[in-house]
């Protein structure tokens, strides 16, 4: 049987549907079984028995952003390198290994220089890289 090309995506849809069904089903079944008597104390955020002070949606350190920044650059780099890596073998088998290797390594080196820059600037030192930005 010649399976149609798009059939390969069918299990993905089915599995995603399963995930939704599992969550919804468990919460619905649980609604029948479990007790439900909320009170204000129960529904407050846990702060080791103290009254919660303020809300938690406040500012965070910029370090998190710099890390995710480096990550997204590498993510995109991966997106560009995956097809190239996949055809490397074919190119090598027809004797074009050297130029492909050179361009591949050049690509990596350019990006690695970015890593070295961030390294030197202390973006990877979690503790001592920044002072708290002073509010003017």
């Amino acid at each position: 049987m010649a399976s149609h090309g798009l059939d390969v995506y069918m299990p993905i849809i089915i599995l995603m549907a399963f995930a939704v069904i599992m969550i919804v089903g468990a919460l619905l079944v649980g609604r029948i079984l479990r007790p439900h008597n909320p009170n204000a104390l129960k529904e407050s955020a846990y702060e080791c028995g103290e009254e919660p002070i303020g809300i938690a949606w406040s500012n965070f350190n910029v370090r998190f952003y710099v890390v995710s920044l480096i990550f997204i650059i590498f993510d995109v780099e991966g997106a560009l390198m995956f097809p190239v890596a996949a055809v490397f073998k074919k190119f090598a088998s027809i004797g074009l290994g050297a130029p492909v290797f050179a361009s591949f390594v050049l690509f990596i080196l350019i990006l690695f220089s970015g890593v070295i820059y961030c390294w030197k600037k202390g973006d990877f030192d979690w503790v001592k890289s920044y002072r708290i930005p002073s509010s003017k």
Partner: protein
Amino acid sequence: MISLPSYLFISFLLFVAGMFVMIARKNIVAILLGIELILNSAALNFVAYTKFVNNNLDGHIMSLFIIVIAAAEAAVGLAIVIRFYQLRESVHIDDATQLQS
């Protein structure tokens, strides 16, 4: 049912929605979100035309680079937003009136 106009229509909707978000919102992050929608609509158009019109893969390459540029744009744009917030404690687009802090 699955033809070029249907893809173009979805792409058009994405573009219009992104346009609307960009104009209507005052939050810079929301405006960047609208830009992502517009870039997606452009990439979708490229792939749809590639499939239905000329059938080589140049449109895919173009879309790939659009995704690359979208990621780079989001990184730099959000960095600017964060810096702006550190200076002015605001992400309101109307506060961004000075080139120098």
